[in-house]
């Protein structure tokens, strides 16, 4: 590790700590329907939307109604988006005259954006018109993120309420998340990004003649306006194929720094909001602490692996260590603007959260460096996580940790004073199982299908990792790609589409059910016999459970993928 690298990482952690509390307090006010500094501006618009849509903002919903509203909203959203892509050739704002998107790709992409995955089996600049990008994709960047936040808020309410039937109103949570949280931050930071050099226009692509005299087409578009929500909403769908490695999407190291901070900020703020709503701030910090530990563990592993580079190069006489004039380590697939530190940071953050934006090619990372993003996603992206999904995903592990360890203190396990019984365990296991089933099951199916294997650029363990990464990324609703896999085939478009659907809704619905069930329970007052969940001990336990459950489930797969590849690399063999 270089001093420079360590300073950059510490600066990031510090910045994250600084935004957590103010954002958490703001989120609490927004979702407790309290007045805040945006109310004078946004309030009238909010009330107008309710009146237009016939929403009764004070009518609270049971978990079933809440789930139905969320599912309906997602289904309708997906159908409309599918329609936009299929009809984009006759819709406006298409200066490049791009044709209609193929059915399987449209299905995949519609699901991808509705589930906040933003898996992109296409290159944006050569497939999607400006209209599709702005009215279709960018719209879902906002509302799929707002849906995630709404679910996290509803689940939080379920956990903290006592003897209650309802979890809040989905439409209100959705609107408030969009109007008070996502839009204002997107507008402000978007302008900062424009100042940093991001493009923002509706012009046709520019044709330039390079120094060598070759013709080069330079894509244009409304980039900056999409960029903030791509990060803030942990969407990750890039305007361009190169995503945040493209200079128009991420012009400088400092914009890259802001981008990674945006990815974590809401996830981190939600833990603070949880603590505040639970009326015990340490409950929030315990979860935050577990997330921070897992983040740092992954980051350090990834960074050190990248910085140490490939031993085979050394044998070829290439200097591996960082020096005054060169970064050392593994620079393949990384932007020189960002270097190893910002690339490792970006890769870790984007997969801890369910963002999926990239500023370098994960496929080109060292095997262990590339395993970190993969493993992060396998854990279900609960390390700060996707907006909302990180928190409610984390509650799956919290329930399991509390259940196993809570028994060891000799009481029926309870969380926030409510007993965890077979119903909650069943639902948590259902959520966990659907993730495992999609990640491993689809991969297992794909690697024995000759037609699927044709999409692979690499063989051996690396090829396995590429497919495993794709299904893991889709299931976890991350959307980042390992590259090396040509996923725009009917097989992958359809299977990945289903992985995204299952990975999203088979976690959301069980967790809303948990919330509904927990809300009804009466909280037991804390006593000496209570297993405290607001202590560092619990944070540690949570980390152990996540690592052991995640590790045990995926160790066989990882051992034949990145671990084997790493060992082979040490032995001088590459793929």
């Amino acid at each position, binding site marked *: 590790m270089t001093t420079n690298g360590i300073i950059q990482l510490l600066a990031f952690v510090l910045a994250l700590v600084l935004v957590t509390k103010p954002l958490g307090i703001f989120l609490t006010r927004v979702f407790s329907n309290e007045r805040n500094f945006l109310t004078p501006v946004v309030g009238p618009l909010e009330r107008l939307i309710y009146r237009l849509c016939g929403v009764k903002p004070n009518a609270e919903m049971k978990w079933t109604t809440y789930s139905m509203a969320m599912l309906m909203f997602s289904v309708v959203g997906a159908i409309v988006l599918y329609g936009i892509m299929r009809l984009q050739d006759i819709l406006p704002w298409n200066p490049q005259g791009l044709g209609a998107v193929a059915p399987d790709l449209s299905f995949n992409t519609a699901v991808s954006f509705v589930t906040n995955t933003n898996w992109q089996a296409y290159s944006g600049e050569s497939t999607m018109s400006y209209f599709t990008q702005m009215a279709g994709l960018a719209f879902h960047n906002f509302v799929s993120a707002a849906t995630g936040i709404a679910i996290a808020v509803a689940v939080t309410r379920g956990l903290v309420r006592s003897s209650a039937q309802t979890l809040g109103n989905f439409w209100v949570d959705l609107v408030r998340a969009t109007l008070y949280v996502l839009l204002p931050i997107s507008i402000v930071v978007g302008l900062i990004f424009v100042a940093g050099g991001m493009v923002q226009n509706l012009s046709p692509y520019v044709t330039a003649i390079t120094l060598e005299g070759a013709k080069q087409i330079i894509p244009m578009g409304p980039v900056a306006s999409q960029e903030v929500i791509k990060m803030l909403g942990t969407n990750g769908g890039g305007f361009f194929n190169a995503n945040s490695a493209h200079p128009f999407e991420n012009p400088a190291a400092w914009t890259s720094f802001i981008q990674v901070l945006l990815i974590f900020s809401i996830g981190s703020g939600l833990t603070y909001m949880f603590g505040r709503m639970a009326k015990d701030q340490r409950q929030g910090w315990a979860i935050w602490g577990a997330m921070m530990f897992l983040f740092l563990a992954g980051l350090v592993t990834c960074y050190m692996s990248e910085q140490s580079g490939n031993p085979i190069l050394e044998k070829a006489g290439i200097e591996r260590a960082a020096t005054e004039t060169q970064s050392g380590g593994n620079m393949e697939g990384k932007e020189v603007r960002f270097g190893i530190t910002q690339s490792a940071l970006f890769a870790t953050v984007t997969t801890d959260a369910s963002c999926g934006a990239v500023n370098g090619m994960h496929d080109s990372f060292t095997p262990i460096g590339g395993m970190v993003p993969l493993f992060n996603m396998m854990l279900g992206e609960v390390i700060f996580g996707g907006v909302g999904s990180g928190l409610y995903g984390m509650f799956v592990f919290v329930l399991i940790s509390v259940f196993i360890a809570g028994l060891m203190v000799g009481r029926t396990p309870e969380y926030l004073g409510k007993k965890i019984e*077979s119903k909650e365990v069943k639902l948590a296991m259902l959520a*966990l199982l659907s993730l495992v089933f999609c990640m*491993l099951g689809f991969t297992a199916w794909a690697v024995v299908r000759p037609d699927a294997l044709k999409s692979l650029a690499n063989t051996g363990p690396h*090829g396995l990792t590429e497919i495993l990464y794709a299904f893991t990324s889709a299931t976890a609703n991350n959307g980042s790609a390992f590259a090396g896999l040509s996923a725009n085939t009917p097989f992958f478009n359809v299977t990945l589409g289903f992985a995204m659907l299952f990975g999203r809704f088979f976690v959301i619905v069980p967790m809303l059910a948990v919330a509904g069930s927990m809300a009804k329970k009466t909280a037991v*007052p804390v006593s000496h016999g*209570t*297993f405290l969940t607001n202590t560092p001990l619990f944070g540690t336990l949570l980390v152990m459970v996540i690592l052991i459950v995640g590790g045990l489930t995926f160790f066989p797969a990882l051992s034949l*993928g990145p671990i084997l590849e790493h060992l082979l690399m*040490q032995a001088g063999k590459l793929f």
Partner: protein
Amino acid sequence: MSKHEVHKQKSLFDPAIVKRALVDSIKKLDPRLLWKSPVMFVVEIGAVLTTASWVRELTGFSSGDAVFSGLISAWLWFTVLFATFAEAMAEGRGKAQADALRKTKTETMAKRVTGDTVGKGVQFTQVNATMLRKGDIVLIEAGDIIPGDGDAVEGVASIDESAITGESAPVIRESGGDRSAVTGGTRIISDWLKVKITSNPGETFIDRMIGLVEGASRQKTPNEIALTILLSGMTIIFVVALVALQSFATYLASPVSIVVMVSLLICLIPTTIGGLLSAIGIAGIDRVLQRNVLAMSGRAVEAAGDVSTLLLDKTGTITIGNRMATEFLPAPGVTIEALAQTAHLSSLSDETPEGRSIVALAEQITRDLPFELLSAAKTFIPFSAHTRMSGVDMGGSAIRKGAVDAIARLAGPGGMPPEVTAQVERIAKSGGTPLAVAQDGRVLGVIHLKDIVKPGMRERFEQLRAMGIKTVMITGDNPLTARAIAEEAGVDDFLAEATPEAKMALIRKEQAMGKLVAMTGDGTNDAPALAQADVGVAMNTGTMAAKEAANMVDLDSNPTKLIEVVEIGKQLLMTRGALTTFSIANDVAKYFAIIPAMFMAAFPELAALNIMGLHSPQSAILSAVIFNALIIVALIPLALKGIKYRPLGAAAVLRRNILVYGVGGVIIPFIGIKAIDLVVSAFGF
């Protein structure tokens, strides 16, 4: 430990129990029974698959190392057997006890009353006890076996209940009041009773008891169901992970044999806890039973662990049930020595704690009795429910002690000096009990019997407080007396002048705050509260109504045991949590044993993961499977006895258990598998 417990308690590993468990463990391999334990069911399927491979290899249908497959199959069968053995062992003591109980259910004849004449001389017909139905009235006389459960409607009798309680001292049952319940299968020793039968054949207390101790009517408790779901979920996850692994291996052109795949699966699924789960539950109920408490369901034992408020009756729980003599108050003209000596003589044959306490106090005043008094011929008059006094006739003189009103009746009108009456009132006001002493009808004075807080109760309550349990003393005393005793005993709160309604209101209030409440009771008017409480323990001496309402019956009628039941409940949950943690933690080492072994042939580089340095792929897999089976056996005693219980706060308990079962669970298999590997490789694997 009281005498009957010694008589009753068989050792956990009594040879007869072990022998019977060995047979039962094989019967339990029946898939229809094993299905209830999903984890072990999967192991059985795995064992069948590997056995099939072994047979194919033996008969040459497929290639492969038949010796290796045979050994793996054998150890997988052992894994299942060890689990069923653990369950059979847990049921062992209960089954032995059930056999003993069944013997009391021999054919009994009953005298069914046909008329409704009052008194003993009624008309009756002899019928078989199995013919009796609810509502029948039967006459039971000295020497008869009580034909069924019921409530005495007429008469007073002493009954030997040793068949169910193990206690040989007879108990008094009388019509009306809170001591009217009689249990079928017990025997009347003296006098007679008319009893109204309250249960049909097959539903009697003894029938239920047999069902419970045998585990026949056992249902999974809520927490056990939740844990089973968790374990089944984990099993499915591992099945998915391993099916996927085979697919990945196929992609890498090095598929793994079914025997190896099954071995890895069985090692990974939580067999340790899966195999011991039902044993832990049964053993928990058994431990309660060994303390002579009959839990009507496992759910009640489990709930006991969650109790956060304990309602304890003052008398018998917090204070020594039978009050102690603390002073002699002579009548005018009587010396204290004379009173003490007379009281001493009257109590010589009185084996009750009160009687003994009188002797002890008298000896402090008068030293030993003079030899001539001790050696004189005496006729002891035992206490009876009718006379409410006891004493001795010696040298033509009748010495009596007993309830003040009974002695007053003996002394005749005006026989009670007013000074004595004043003392009696003073004692009664202070919450004590006066006992009068008379010689030949002359009142000599009174003995002050006082509540004495049981030794060690203060510490006990402190432990309960550390565990987060609030104690509330329930007493009929006035608030002043109650406060004095509450402070002396160190309880958190008290309910004075408690009526059944006040008790009920207190339970409701605590429950509304989300707390679980436990209480003891015996009277019919306790029944609603017993039913309302999350854990209600009825005294066996109590009424049928109380016993029906409660979810536990204490056969010794010792209310202090509620605390022990709570501890057993906690221990039960702790044992489950600890073994689950241990089981999951074990998997780390098993991975490092088996994964490299699976693929070392195709990718020699994976040898780097063989951090235990196991001898060969075969020895590694075999060692992991053997370890996995043996750890179940090794943990059977722990499962049956429960993990060591310490009355500490949750944080301390958790830290300790995580260290022992979590961290220990990661480390132990590394050592164990390596050790087994050394042995296995010595045999040439």
